[in-house]
């Protein structure tokens, strides 16, 4: 197994406030890694560090290294467009654009220079099939994406990410706004996607982490307390704080 993402002594500051402290972990290719921990412990911040979405927040500074395929994404000559094309992101709140379903999917490919109608049509069908949404929307591709249910919107957003053909997909609590049935469908989708993509998912639902992930990292106050195979972390945690957290004693 090769490592897709390598993080070494990574620190992040919001102004003077340090949100990530000396993070180090390696994420394997085509595996699902879950990030768990109480809210405010830096999970989202870490996730957004991988595709450098934190760059847009004024006052953020970082030290250390995050490598994807052996290249530090924080190096000077890193092209942000290329990075984000390679590392897709799904947000907590489903955020389809107020455009048609078709235009949502083709938004990314068009930005990256694909203009041929047939090619775009193919991408739309392929990604919607991949996201288990095709059957539900194939007859109304031109209607507004805002008319979809929350669960459908989240799968649409995943299809939109797949359309830019990333290697890595980051998901920040993608199921927290969904009902149980939509959540289950989303988890099925994640399990299916890990054959082709390296996935990092933030969740505060421990059962979810246990169900979908191969590896789990436990965050606390901006630090990684424990990082190991999911089965191991949930059955025999090494650190007492991990144990306290997964047994529901805080958070």
């Amino acid at each position: 197994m090769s490592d897709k993402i390598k993080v070494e002594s990574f620190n992040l500051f919001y102004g003077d406030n340090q949100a990530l402290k000396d993070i180090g972990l390696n994420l394997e290719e085509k595996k699902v890694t879950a990030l768990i921990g109480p809210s405010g412990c830096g999970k989202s911040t870490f996730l957004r560090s991988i595709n450098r979405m934190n760059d847009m927040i004024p006052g953020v500074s970082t030290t250390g290294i995050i490598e994807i395929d052996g290249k530090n994404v924080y190096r000077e000559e890193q092209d942000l467009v290329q990075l984000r094309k390679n590392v897709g992101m799904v947000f907590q709140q489903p955020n389809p654009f107020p455009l048609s379903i078709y235009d949502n999917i083709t938004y990314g490919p068009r930005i990256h220079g694909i203009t041929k109608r047939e090619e775009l049509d193919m991408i739309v069908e392929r990604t919607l099939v991949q996201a288990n949404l095709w059957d539900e929307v194939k007859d109304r591709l031109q209607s507004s994406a805002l008319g979809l249910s929350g669960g459908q919107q989240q799968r649409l957003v995943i299809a939109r990410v797949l359309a830019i053909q990333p290697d890595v997909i980051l998901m920040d609590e993608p199921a927290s706004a969904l009902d149980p049935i939509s959540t289950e469908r989303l988890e099925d989708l994640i399990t299916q996607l890990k054959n082709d993509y390296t996935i990092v998912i933030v969740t505060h639902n421990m059962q979810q982490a246990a169900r979908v992930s191969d590896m789990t990292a436990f965050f606390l106050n901006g630090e990684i307390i424990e990082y190991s195979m999911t089965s191991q972390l949930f059955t025999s945690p090494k650190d007492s704080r991990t144990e306290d957290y997964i047994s529901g004693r805080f958070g």
Partner: protein
Amino acid sequence: MEQLVTNQVAEQKRPLSEDLKKPLPKILQAERRGRVLTYVSSWVLLLILFSLLIFITSKGAAPFISGEVSFAEFFSTKWNPGENSYGALSFILGSLIVSVCAAIVSAPLGIGAAIFMTEIAPKWGRKILQPATEILVGIPSVVYGFVGLTVVVPFIREQFGGLGFGLLAGVIVLSIMILPTIVSISVDTLQSIPRHLREGSYALGATRWQTISRLLLRTSLPGLMTGVVLGMARAFGEALAVQMVIGNSPNLPFNLLTPISTLTSIITLNMGNTVQGSTYNSILWSMALILLLMTLLFVVLIRWITKRREQS
């Protein structure tokens, strides 16, 4: 902040819990008083509006009903009140063209400034440009007209020849006047686009310019259009500043440098010189009626745009 204020109020008076326990009648009375007050205000408003509508309509329709002037005459370009010719078409077109041109000039400038203020330099924009637009809104129109008269008109005269007064001068003055309207409405619209949509776009690898042109402008189009139409309505109804620079000759507005007239400029210039009840005076009312109808049209247009936005 708000909480603080309510807390202070609560401390000065008795706590609300006490109030709620016993003196129900008192609260009911306040409720009733409030309801009566709002009812009365809205009825007064409606009454004023309807009397205005009826007044202007009856005054404006009078010359046609009495047969003094025919519709065909009114919608012709022959304007010579001394010889009983009352064709207002030049002024109707003048008003329309000057405001449409002002909107065409002002829309890209205003929307561009709004994008700069919200997307490119939000800090600087909010600190300097926003107060600046608010000041621009507050400047009285006579000042705009005066500046137009002393700066714009001579400038046109020197650059392009002619008198300087005319359509072009009107367009320039009006486009500056309506700029703040377009800017502030565009800013509101752009700011109301939720942050997570922008993030979604950036996370797909879009650049700032792509996010602006492909996502933000597209999703905020109805709001931006509302701003432009409101600006146009303001230009259409503006009288003083226009009258100071437009030249006030009854010409058709098909040349940027010719002095023309608008409905508003004709009304303001002549209402004091005509005799109540004369045909000339009544025709001015007919023009006011046209202005009113056009304003109604603008309102309907804006409602239609916002309704479509809510549907999509």
